[in-house]
């Protein structure tokens, strides 16, 4: 394959239906991933959060909060 091939990802789906996010370190890792994709201009979606993980993410994640990008940039 010639080097001219470029894979241009526009959308990313993260399927976590068989994963469990246990603590705030895990939640902030997910934050980091989503915010990095966004910074690259990639549309990102998380699907299949189980209930316990969803609770953790509701309480501690920043990527789903309105000022998400600002808080990431300040780091």
């Amino acid at each position: 394959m010639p080097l001219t091939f470029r894979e241009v990802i526009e959308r990313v789906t993260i399927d976590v239906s068989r994963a469990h996010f246990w603590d705030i370190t895990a939640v902030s890792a997910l934050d980091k991933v989503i915010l990095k994709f966004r910074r690259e201009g990639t549309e990102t979606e998380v699907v299949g959060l189980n209930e316990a993980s969803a609770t953790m993410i509701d309480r501690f994640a920043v990527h789903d909060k309105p000022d998400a990008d600002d808080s990431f940039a300040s780091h």
Partner: protein
Amino acid sequence: MKSIRQEWFSNTRNDLLAGLVVALALIPEAIAFSIIAGVDPKVGLYASFCIATIIAFTGGRPGMISAATAAMALLMVTLVKDHGLQYLLAATVLTGVLQIIAGYIRLGSLMRFVSRSVITGFVNALAILIFMAQLPELINVTWVVYVMTAAGLGIIYLLPYVTRAVPSPLVTIVVLTIVAIALDLDIRTVGDMGELPDSLPVFLIPDIPLTWETLAIIFPYSLTMMVVGLLESLLTATIVDDLTDTKSNKNRECVGQGVANVATGFIGGMAGCAMIGQSVINVKSGGRGRLSTLTAGIALLILIVFLGDWVAQIPMAALVAVMIMVSIGTFDWQSVIKLREHPKSSSIVMLATVLVTVFTHDLAKGVLVGVLASGFFFAAKVARILAIRSFTEDEGRQRTYVVTGQVFFASAEQFVNAFDFQRGD
């Protein structure tokens, strides 16, 4: 009412007999543990009487024997050396108070974090420490001591092939004492080690200044003794549960141990806990109910008060032989063989528990290290089952990542690194 009769009088004859056997077997151990702690033999003997008698009523595991123990004695050595007996008695009372609190806040359920490898490490370290505590009696002594100790071990291990009617450690003590008196041997005896009981114990308040300074001295010891005492008691309770196919009340046992230690401190005894070896002797001798434990305590007191003069004549070599037997019996020899078979992490946890305990002479520190190491290895293992794969769709415009497994502190970095953030290349 029914359960009282069940717990006390369902097995009367066997309980009385087994209790008597345990009382006889307790005498040499209680004296030897006093010597390990650096106190007069009467401190361990009163403690063993008091703890066994009270735990018969307050304990959560009928048929289990509690008394002065090696594990606890090893923790008191520096307290006795630096501050004396009165501080030990105060520390014993405080240990009991802490255990009562532990029982009410259900600290017993924390036992589930103590893995099998840590327990194996605990008993192995205990065995090594008991053996090491005998070395002062075996270094720089005459050849007579070695002959006596060897003869003692011979009786202990060979007599059971002839008869099991009397505990062989007791026969060792009796025979070696008679030999030492008959031949007028010039070797150390129990009488040289300190005062023996000549009366019933009396209530006394530890003679210490009631200040914060005192508390600062005894609290660390009491805290460690609280942990080790409960650990060994709950471990022993589990062993008795398995042996008898019955259940025990672990939180009641914690409170019961506390009550027994508080009372023991006030009659001049040292802190104790459940004893694996004696409990097994009791069950194997037919003891099942609370009456067996009560009999052991009361018979012990009667024996020592009436036989005090004879007890003083027991050669130390006989006690050393008994303690070597306790040490060999406590050590889990199977665990050495299984070191290579078991998963590496389990073996490391076991060895870490042993090494830390032997170097610090503190079973609580060993157990703490073991529990932390178990947690560390568990986290590392679970972190490894995180898998992330991805595929593209829609001619490379859509990428889906499928995450399977556990994401937490130990696997978070691996999680982040699995994603490719560059839009191209």
